[in-house]
């Protein structure tokens, strides 16, 4: 039986109809709310393409069941900043022209945003350790590190 559930995403409140409370948050965001981010990358919490902030924590939405996010505040990449009011990481990503295919961007920026919040001036090693596990197949790692450093210097 479908049940109703309330979700707060990027500052807006939504009520969605849920067939299965075990459904990962990712599909609610994409299919019920029509968001283009986050992305499905692996469905296994191995790549980060689905990352959102749940109550400020970088969270892999592809393995987070809806039942675990009742009443939570969720922020996606689209809610992090806009072209008019970019988050420093988004501005740095544009400045450094980081992405190639860019499908991974979501995971890196959302994870780095949480990292910079807890550690505003990370060292090179802090950045690498903090972003370890995220995948980028195009090999833009050098540009990612430059962008995170740039964003940290802007903050």
């Amino acid at each position, binding site marked *: 039986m479908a049940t109703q559930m309330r979700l707060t995403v990027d500052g807006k409140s939504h009520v969605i109809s849920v*067939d*299965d409370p075990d*459904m*990962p948050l990712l*599909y609610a965001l*994409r*299919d019920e709310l*029509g*968001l*283009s*981010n986050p*992305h*499905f*990358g*692996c*469905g*296994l919490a*191995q*790549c980060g*393409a689905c990352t959102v902030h749940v109550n400020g924590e970088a969270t892999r939405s592809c393995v987070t069941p809806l039942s675990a996010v009742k009443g939570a505040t969720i922020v*996606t*990449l*689209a809610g992090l*900043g*806009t*072209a008019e009011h*970019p988050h420093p990481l*988004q501005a740095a*990503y*544009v400045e450094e*022209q*980081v*992405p*190639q*295919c*860019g*499908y*991974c*961007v*979501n995971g890196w*920026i959302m994870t780095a945003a949480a990292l910079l919040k807890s550690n505003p001036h990370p060292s*090179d090693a802090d950045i*690498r*350790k903090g*972003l*370890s*596990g*995220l*995948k*980028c*197949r*195009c*090999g*833009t*790692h*050098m*540009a*990612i*590190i430059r962008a995170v450093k740039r964003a940290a210097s802007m903050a």
Partner: protein
Amino acid sequence: MTHLDLLRTDLTRRGVLKSAGALVVSFSAPAALAQAATAAVAAPKPLDPTQLDSYLAIHRDGSATVFFGKIDGGQGTDVGIAQIVAEELDLPADRVAVILGDTALTLNQGGASGSFGINWGGRTMRKAAAEARQFLLQLAAKRLKVPAETLTVANGVVSVADAPGKKIGYGQLIGGKFFNVPLKWNGKYGIVLDIDSTAPLKKPADYKVVGTSPKRRDVKAKVFAQAATYVTDIRVPGMLHARVIRPPVAGATANSVDASSIDGIPGARVVQKGGYIAVVAEKEWNAIRAAQRLKIDWSQPAPAFADPAKLYDHIRKAPVRKRVVEKQKGSVDDAMPGAVQVVTADYAWPFQSHASMGSACALAEMKDGKMTVWTGTQKPHYAQQGVAALLDIPVERVHAIWVTGPGSYGRNDAGDAALEAAFLAHELGKPVRVQGMRAEGIAWDPKAPASVHHARAGLDASGKIVAYQFESKGFSRLEIESNESHPAYSLIGQQWGLPLKPIDSFGTPDEAYDIPNRLMAWETIAPMLDRASPLRTSHQRDPVGPQIHFASESFIDELALAAKADPVAFRLRHLSGRDAAAVKAAAEKFGWETRVSGPAADSKADVVTGRGIAYAKRLGTIVVVAAEVEVDRRSGKVRAKRFAVAHDCGCIVNPALLHNTIEGNIVQATSRSLWEEVRFDRQKVTSVDWATYPILDITEAPEKIDIVLLDHPEIPPSGAGEPSSRPVAGAIANAIFDATGVRIRRAPFRPENLKGSFA
């Protein structure tokens, strides 16, 4: 109007043309179409390679739109094309919009293929732009009543050289109208499509736009999560979600499918035709659940694959299906006995996966007798042909629209998804979006072939190579074509039982060493499973380049050692001109220490460092990579710490984007060298996700990559999308030898493969 509506609007090229003055040019492709869609649509003009109008249009505001029959996978090819066209038209680059990869708007220029986007694609578009400029000057001469020779152009405004007040803009001359200028076409479609033109081309010395670095047009859309940026984001009303069921064991077919096993899942149903099985549902999660829950009684075929521990034995022993001697000079057999030293070595490279960031996705909709397919394929014009053949409908009734996919390094799983979405939409009479789960993009994508390489060379008394034989043997690089133009090249077509169309192809080293006697050949063997195999091969970034040049450039270092020579000095003995200049540039940037490679005799440290170099060409482009590695002799772990790269691709169109392209290739190729190996057992591929197909982690990314761009404005561009992938493995292997004194002849250099090698 949403982006979705815009993408669904049945645009015509006339529509784009009529958008004229309203067109804003600094935007992503959907935004360009957005502007176009608001304009009145008049009678369309069919695409015709003999008509200038099929290549570009001038709008009423004097800006231009280029119709480019290729795509950009994130390296900025579209920006480069805009620069090349802007240069010939004397427009700023941001006044040239580029429409990519839509079969209704662009000619079949082969899609992304072989690093030909800027060199061959740009060559054609440059000539088209020169033709347009010449025609515009003729129009201006008539309107201004002066000879065309007295005219100059700046920012799209034509003026009289000695009477600057007399002027007229491109928009006033032709804006919103067709050129109706015929061109001499070479009669070929695909990457070789070209036109013959006598219109004067701008001299490199006068370049203002080519050689500068305007930014990419897709980055903001990606960073700010703009709607409909990716093919995965396209949605149409009433669409169903599909998931494909691949057999659990290679070669298995369904004896029976228990459709009742998914009864409890809302809207879920099975679609089956021949050996192809998919599930669909209105909600994506329900399609995923149905795919996981569906019960199928599978056949139990005999194990298809060789023992993976003996893969390279299998290749060496397998009957040769095709042998080609690609390069021959003098006589190796005659020269070898005169050599003072003969060196031989064997190398091996595994199957590798595109492992794109996300598995492929496609959306298809049959409407008013016409099939529209949104696809992330690199070659939408071939997807159009493949879909038409699969559904047995005229190609004119298929419209393929390229939208950025989750990764683009060759013929990955996108080609399969395009055909499968089209079949499902046709079968069900509803729009269908299909997306792979993680395993579809690693276990089931077409693979880069596994191969072995045998090298033999003789040195003379002066330490120069007098005879060189290099032979590769492996699975063909094209067990399926590098596009999906025929259903036999797709998984669904093969599962339906269509006759196969394999191609036997491999390659030989591309370099310019001056060696008097050489023989370079390749041999292919049959696939281990002939149809619907998860190990079927096709093109992956720099097809067979990494495997061949890992072997050939490792071997050159082995020869240098035998000659007791420094690896840079040894290469320079055999190189001249631009090739030698690139080797010197990389060595200088790296801070190369001249000495014979190998560790100091008293080196006892557990963690040791070394330096290596490798050089290769690719269709005219020259790349030299110097690497510094750190090796932990106990664990076998290799870290590629630092690179210096010299890159010569002739004329550089956009240095900043070229830099990022090379940097990405170096990191991706480092990943392929250190980690990547498709694992399988005798029945199936066991690399199914990132845990079982690890790639380079950011903690292992190099500390530094220095890139020297060698620019030759007078030499036409020779391509940069792939060449820097090929020397990386050789440079790393050579550095490992320098650090440890141990020669590694098999990739990848994973700790479990190397552990014990350095004891």
